[in-house]
C-alpha cells in the first residue's frame, strides 16, 4: 500500500509510461484482430481478452484502484456484478425472441420444419 499521510496517490512516472505503452500495444492487437479478419471463437476470445486487460490497467493503475483501500474497492467494483445478471438474462431473452421470430415471421418451409411433429390434421 503506497498510501501517503495526505491520502493522495503519488507513484513513479515510469509506471504510467509503461501502462500507457501497454495500452497502445493492446489497442493495436485489438485492431489487428479486425484487420486480419479473424472469425468465430478466436475473434471473440481475443477481443474480450484485450478489452478486459485494457479495462483492468485503466481502472487499476490510471484510476489508482490497485492502491485504494478494500472498503472503496468493494463499494465500487461489486455492484457491477448485478449487471452480469442483466446481461445473462437479456442474452437468454434475445435467443428466445430470435426463435419466436423464426417460427412466426420466416418463410413457410422453415416454419413447418420447426413445428414438425406437432402437425394438426384437419
Amino acid at each position, binding site marked *: 500500500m503506497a498510501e501517503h499521510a495526505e491520502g493522495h496517490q503519488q507513484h513513479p512516472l515510469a509506471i504510467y509510461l509503461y501502462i500507457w505503452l501497454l495500452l497502445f500495444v493492446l489497442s493495436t492487437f485489438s485492431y489487428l484482430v479486425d484487420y486480419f479478419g479473424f472469425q468465430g471463437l478466436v475473434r471473440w476470445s481475443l477481443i474480450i481478452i484485450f478489452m478486459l486487460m485494457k479495462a483492468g490497467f485503466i481502472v487499476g493503475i490510471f484510476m489508482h484502484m490497485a492502491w485504494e483501500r478494500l472498503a*472503496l474497492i468493494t463499494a465500487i467494483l461489486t455492484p457491477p456484478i448485478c449487471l452480469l445478471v442483466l446481461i445473462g438474462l437479456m442474452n437468454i*431473452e434475445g435467443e428466445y425472441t430470435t426463435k419466436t421470430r423464426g417460427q412466426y415471421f420466416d418463410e413457410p418451409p422453415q416454419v413447418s420444419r420447426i413445428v414438425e411433429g406437432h402437425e394438426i390434421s384437419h
Partner: protein
Amino acid sequence: MSHEMNAAALPAGVTGVVTDWSGDKQAFQVPWGKAMMWIFLLSDTFIFTSFLTGYMHVRTSTTVPWPNPSEVFALTIAGHHIPLILIAIMTFILISSSGTMALAVNYGYRRDRTKTMLLMLATAAFGAMFVGMQAFEWTKLIVEEGVRPWGNPMGAAQFGACFFMITGFHGMHVSVGVIYLSTVAFKVYRGDYESRGYEIVEIAGLYWHFVDLVWVFIFALFYLW
C-alpha cells in the same frame, strides 16, 4: 447499551438524517470529492451497460443480418481501402489523452502547476480531436451511407438506433470532459489549489479515465464484434 443511549440523545427528523449521515463515521479514507466521483462513475457504469445490453439484445434477436462495422467504418486513404481505420485512430487519440491525464495528476501532486496545466490542456485537446472525428464519422454515416435511427441500407434496422445512442452518449461525456478539464486546468494555472491541495486534478482524471474506459468497451463490443 451505549448504542441505545446514543440513539436517544440524537436529534429526530431531518436534522437526525443529517446527523446520522455525517456523524463522524467516515467509511472511505479518501477526500469526499473522490468518493463521490467514484459513486457517480458507478452509476454511469450502469447507464452505459444498460445501453450496451440493449444493443446486445437487439443484435442477437434480429433475424436480418447486422451491418458489418469493419466495412461500414472503413475509409479509403490515398487509394487504399483500410477497414475500421477511423475508429482505430479515435481509439489511439483517446488512449493518448488518458496517458497525458495520468501524467497531469502526477505533476499536480508535485505542485508543478505549469506542467499540470499544459498536460491537462493537451488532454482536453485530444478530447476535442476525438469529438471532431466523431462528428466527421456521424456526418459520413448520415449523409453518405443513409443511416437513420429507424433504418439503413446495409442491414438490420436497429443498427442506427444503437449506434447513435451509444456513441452519442459517449461523445457527450467526452465533450463535457473537455469543458471540465479546461476549467480545472485554468484553476490550476490560477493557483486555486495551492492551499486546498491537488486532489481535484486526480478527481477530474478519474472522470476522464472513465470516458476512455467506456470507449474500450464500445470499441470491442460495437465496432469489433
